[in-house]
């Protein structure tokens, strides 16, 4: 499969001011700190990690919704990090985003029709029978009755709002859709509907997804490949099967082991049983030296504290950044 999007050395730092009245210090919050990532045409790349790891920021960087501090993104053969505002607006047709919060993602003063139609109008279409027809097709595609088009967001449930958000993202027929935690704000009984809808639409329209989530079960279900992030870095990328069957980074292993069991008979805990991983996630304002996971890693070695591990293959299409699998400093 060809690469649809390729990110090289992507960095996003936010300036954070701190300190007292007289001595203000500027610190960089390293939200995304040097990420190489490839998204292949037609696949779903799952992006998992805990809060604050930078996965949402990375998703927005990849479609240049926010400008990068450094690094490049090549989308469909075109370098998009340096595009002029005008060229960028044109390029945006092919990259869209679905958000987490179904309440904040829709303008409360715009009807469903206005919301779904807006991207067409932005790109020069006129309000006409044709654009209305396009809205009808999208409503049908996301499973909403046509009669909902004149309603307003407050009249819909979370799941229905998410469908409206998906229709808005797809009306321009994008190639890549960044799904930023699209089901985590929904009631569990509704999540499966949206996951199934996204799968169906992918088949129908030949979409490529970047699926950002913290729920490892959902990511496993929907993804082709999975990337794991920790504190602004991608620490492991692999095919879904390979990653879930042979997680190689201690962090990936810890994540998977932390997922609650699916049946009470699998409970591991007894009196005195230790949780799989101790400690809290360090702050991205001052990430640990060397391997960022070394403060929590059960297999930490001296080299982990000083040298940052490079990405190395451990199998076909399975890359890991860990000194355990590639001892010694990178060459």
């Amino acid at each position, binding site marked *: 499969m060809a690469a649809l999007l390729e990110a090289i050395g992507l960095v996003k730092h936010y300036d954070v001011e701190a300190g007292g009245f007289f001595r203000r210090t500027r610190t960089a919050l390293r939200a995304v700190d040097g990420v190489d990532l490839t998204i292949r045409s037609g696949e779903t790349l799952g992006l998992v990690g805990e809060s604050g790891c930078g996965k949402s920021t990375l998703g927005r960087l990849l479609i240049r919704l926010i400008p990068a501090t450094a690094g490049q993104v090549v989308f469909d053969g075109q370098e998009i990090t340096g595009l002029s505002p005008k060229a960028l607006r044109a390029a945006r047709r092919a990259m869209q985003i679905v958000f987490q919060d179904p309440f904040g993602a829709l303008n409360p003063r715009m009807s469903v029709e206005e919301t779904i139609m807006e991207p067409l109008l932005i790109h020069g279409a006129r309000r006409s029978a044709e654009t209305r027809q396009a809205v009808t097709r999208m409503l049908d595609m996301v499973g909403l009755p046509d009669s909902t088009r004149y309603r307003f967001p407050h009249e819909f449930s979370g799941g229905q709002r998410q469908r409206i958000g998906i229709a808005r993202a797809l009306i321009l027929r994008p190639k890549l859709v960044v799904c930023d935690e699209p089901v985590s704000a929904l009631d569990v009984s509704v999540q499966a509907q949206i996951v199934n809808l996204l799968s169906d639409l992918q088949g129908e329209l030949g979409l490529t997804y970047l699926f950002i989530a913290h729920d490892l079960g959902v990511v496993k279900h929907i993804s082709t490949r999975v990337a794991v992030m920790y504190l602004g870095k991608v620490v492991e990328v692999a095919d879904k099967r390979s990653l879930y069957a042979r997680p190689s980074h201690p962090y990936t292993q810890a994540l998977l082991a932390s997922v609650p069991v699916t049946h009470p008979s699998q409970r591991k805990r007894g009196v005195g049983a230790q*949780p799989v991983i101790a400690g809290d996630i360090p702050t991205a304002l001052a990430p640990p030296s060397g391997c960022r996971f070394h403060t929590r890693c059960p297999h930490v070695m001296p080299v982990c504290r000083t040298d940052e591990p490079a990405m190395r293959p451990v199998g076909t299409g399975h890359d890991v950044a860990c000194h355990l699998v590639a001892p010694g400093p990178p060459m």
Partner: protein
Amino acid sequence: MSLLEVRDLTTSFQTGGGEVTAVENISFSLEKGEILGIVGESGSGKSVTALAIMGLLPRPPARILGGSIMFEGQDLLRLSDRSMQRLRGPGIAMVFQEPMTSLNPVFTIGEQIMETIGAHESLSQKDRFARAVEMLEKVGIPSATSRMTDYPHQLSGGQRQRVMLAIALVCRPKLLIADEPTTALDVTIQAQILSLLMDLRDEFGMAIMMITHNMGVIAETADRVLVMYAGRTVEQAPVGRLFDHPLHPYTRGLLSCVPTLDQDQDRLVAIPGSLPEPSRRPPGCRFSARCSYAVPACGESIPPLAMFEPGHAAACIRVRDIG
């Protein structure tokens, strides 16, 4: 005598569109040291039930229409505000979902724990300090003595939830109500907190009401489970039986619609439709509009909670037909 015995609890809320019931005829009991899982989605009434037990329902707009809440033999619904206040802490304590907003940002965590002790026991400042430090150590806060002077914003989300637990448990409650205690936390931190809760249960012998929407949390912790939907109990069972033989179609749906790590499926089994708003609930069985087993009779009257096995009850008229 059970530690807690809730009988036919019915509460309502006054809304812009009139009065709607939040929970209807909820009954359950909780023994000493037992963990009862209460599962439900938004609008199921699980949090309202918890607040009613704590005596913290905002009245108005809430109203208790009927039922009783017996805790150690006394009806909490008949207690004066003053007695209820004395009971919160040493009797029943609660931890909430959002650890940031549950802590007061202008006091140190030490002050907040010591204040809770002071409200219920007359101890010297020194003894209270020692108790607070001991409690912080118990909930796994490293170098507890020096953290006593920290403010909530200096702690991470997981640590805040630990502090909330310390405040809740410092008076050794007999019942801890945990309302989605790990929902706002990351999965590695969730594992730590759940593990901590289980250890503390063993150490203190308290009962826990574990309120969650996450079947995984139930599978990890609960002894018995109550499944709620749109304000009513739809199923109640020991945890093993619930996962092996769920009776109610809603419970079955909940168990199968969430993708898990140990199975592969092409499509998820989705429950169609969405949760009914309190003012627009269907007549009869409230799940009937979304239920693939529904027959016309389901819409006629609300099915009663019927016992099918010892300790295993479900509110569905089709249990025998759908096997």
